């Protein structure tokens, strides 16, 4: 029983990280209807930035988070203004946005290879090996910190969306871009800001990932897939949805280690995705069919 509890806590901790990862992708998709295939690449780039800040400037990764998020916010806005803005909106733009952002991802990967070589890197702080007891079992400090930070980030994001003018504008544009224009919202500006925030969230996820995992320039495709699985599982509508999706995935992965050889745990997310889609084409929460 203690074993199950330990695994359950691990799953919850992991889910926190996954939720922060998925939120960035979900926000951009929800508002712009664009699947940011470069999301995984952004996470990887942010992990490298965190690593550089740590090894070259001795900045603790958790303290670096605000810096990284600001940087990535501007990167996201630049990407929108420079590239994404030109894509056709709506269903017609789907394939093109996929391919464009995929191209961006390739470029980011190549840059990372050139700058950092293909070797694995990790951020190891003085407390990386320390652990905290929870309910009698010990968990890595990093995992707990990541979980807490993810919670805080998601809570702040929800506050932003519901209480601030810009946040409400974002929600308005999600509902109906045309009506939003009629009431005086600058839709293009909202799009740019959303892309920026989504990318900043990817930046957050990357810093968190750098403390948890080893990474190299190929890092990110698994994370992209998992973010996507979470969105399908939980729907785009709310924090709750993404949280639930993240929990489902987290639990599935942790408990799958018992059933499936270790190298296949990465495939768990995909299998889960297919199963859910076969059983409920609208996703677990969706009322709309996925399109």
């Amino acid at each position, binding site marked *: 029983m203690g074993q199950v509890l330990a695994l359950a806590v691990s799953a919850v901790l992991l889910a926190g990280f996954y939720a922060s990862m998925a939120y960035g992708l979900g926000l951009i998709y929800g508002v712009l209807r664009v699947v940011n295939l470069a999301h995984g690449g952004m996470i990887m780039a942010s992990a490298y930035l965190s690593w550089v800040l740590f090894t070259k400037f001795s900045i603790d990764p958790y303290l670096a988070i605000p810096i990284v998020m600001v940087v990535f916010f501007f990167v996201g806005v630049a990407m929108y203004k420079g590239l994404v803005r030109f894509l056709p909106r709506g269903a017609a733009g789907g394939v093109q946005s996929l391919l464009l952002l995929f191209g961006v991802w390739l470029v980011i990967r190549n840059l990372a290879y050139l700058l950092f070589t293909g070797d694995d890197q990790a951020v190891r702080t003085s407390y990386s090996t320390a652990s905290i007891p929870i309910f009698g079992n010990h968990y890595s400090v990093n995992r707990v910190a990541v979980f807490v930070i993810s919670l805080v980030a998601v809570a702040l994001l929800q506050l932003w969306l519901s209480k601030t003018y810009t946040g409400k504008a974002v929600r308005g544009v999600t509902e109906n871009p045309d009506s939003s224009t009629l009431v005086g919202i600058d839709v293009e500006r909202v799009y740019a800001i959303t892309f920026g925030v989504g990318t900043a969230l990817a930046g957050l996820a990357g810093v968190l990932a750098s403390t948890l995992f080893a990474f190299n320039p190929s890092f990110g495709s698994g994370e992209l897939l998992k973010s996507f699985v979470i969105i399908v599982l939980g729907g785009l509508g709310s924090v709750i949805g993404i949280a639930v999706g993240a929990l489902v995935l987290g639990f599935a992965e942790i408990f799958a280690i018992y059933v499936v050889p270790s190298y296949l745990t990465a495939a768990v997310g*995909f299998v889960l995705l297919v199963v859910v*889609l076969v059983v409920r084409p609208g996703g677990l929460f969706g009322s709309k069919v996925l399109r």
Partner: protein
Amino acid sequence: MHLPVWASRRALIVFVVAFAVLYLAPFVVSLGDYLHNLAGLAFMFMAAGLAWNWLGGYVGQISFGHAAMFGTGGFTSARLAVTFGLPFWATWLIGGMVAGVYALLWGHPTLRLRGPYFSIATIGVGEATRLVATYWTDFTGGSSGLSLPIDTGPTKFELYWYGLYLLAAVVAMSYWLRKSRIGLGLLAIKEDVEAASDVGVNPSFYQDLVLFLSGTVVGVCGGFYASYQAFIDPLDMFSFERSISFVLIGVIGGIGTILGPAMGAIVFIVIQEFLLASYPQLYLGLYGVLLIVVILFEPLGLSGLIMRLGRRLGIKPSPYAAAGGLSPASSPDAPDAPDPPGPPGPPTASVGASGHEQDGGRA
């Protein structure tokens, strides 16, 4: 001879002439072994690109995981050659079939998804297949890969003609898929899947059919590649880079057209063999930049450029050529309008827009 209603006599003549020219070319013109063999490989990439394009261009579902079928076909055929000593063409066919069935297995449930959802799922398929294959050492030889027995298959020189046969078959199938009723059905599905099923086009069946054919052909190409290289390993055959190459060939050449993937394959081979020999560390970035440039400036790739050129010279594209393209809601003009609808022009925010395009406006 009676051709089916949708086949044009002119196309058949062009096809036969082109085939004859390519078949006889090495006897007439001496290309040198290196270029000759490379041409054979190019035929294979053209075939693979065309097959990818059936799913990506005709049906509108972009697959980032076609390496899964390429590798499955390649390893099945290599295994058959190594363990059972079957003749190469048999191994290719069986390998292709296995790949096609595998495609159906993961594809049938996944094709319910549209657009980006499907595409991301294919990334997962590709990666999962690669993981399994790398660890299934009995079948694939793990990281050490599989070597084919020497002297049992055709030489690289002979593979030129086998590649040509493969390409001819695939081109013929591409033409058939596009022009026949099946092609119309696919076009309908691409534009609006619900409307299509309302008028009696069964999306599930058509998509499964295309996926199966696409997977089988790519599997055969995998077998071809195994025979060509005489050595394959799962890290290369199932890699994400391999999947990317199929996407690139299709997109850069011209998604939805027949000539497109053929040109894309040539571009791809040229880049791989000549540019990358000098700058091997840049290939990902180069592909990425190419993709970005194509999407922003000419979504129909090289075929789009040619069509633009043709329009400037006064040649109007046929409605079929124009209808192949990236975006579903691409031609607001009805197909029976007097002028054939132009291919979707560049994005309306007019990056790189030039004067001549008709209104290929989109939402």
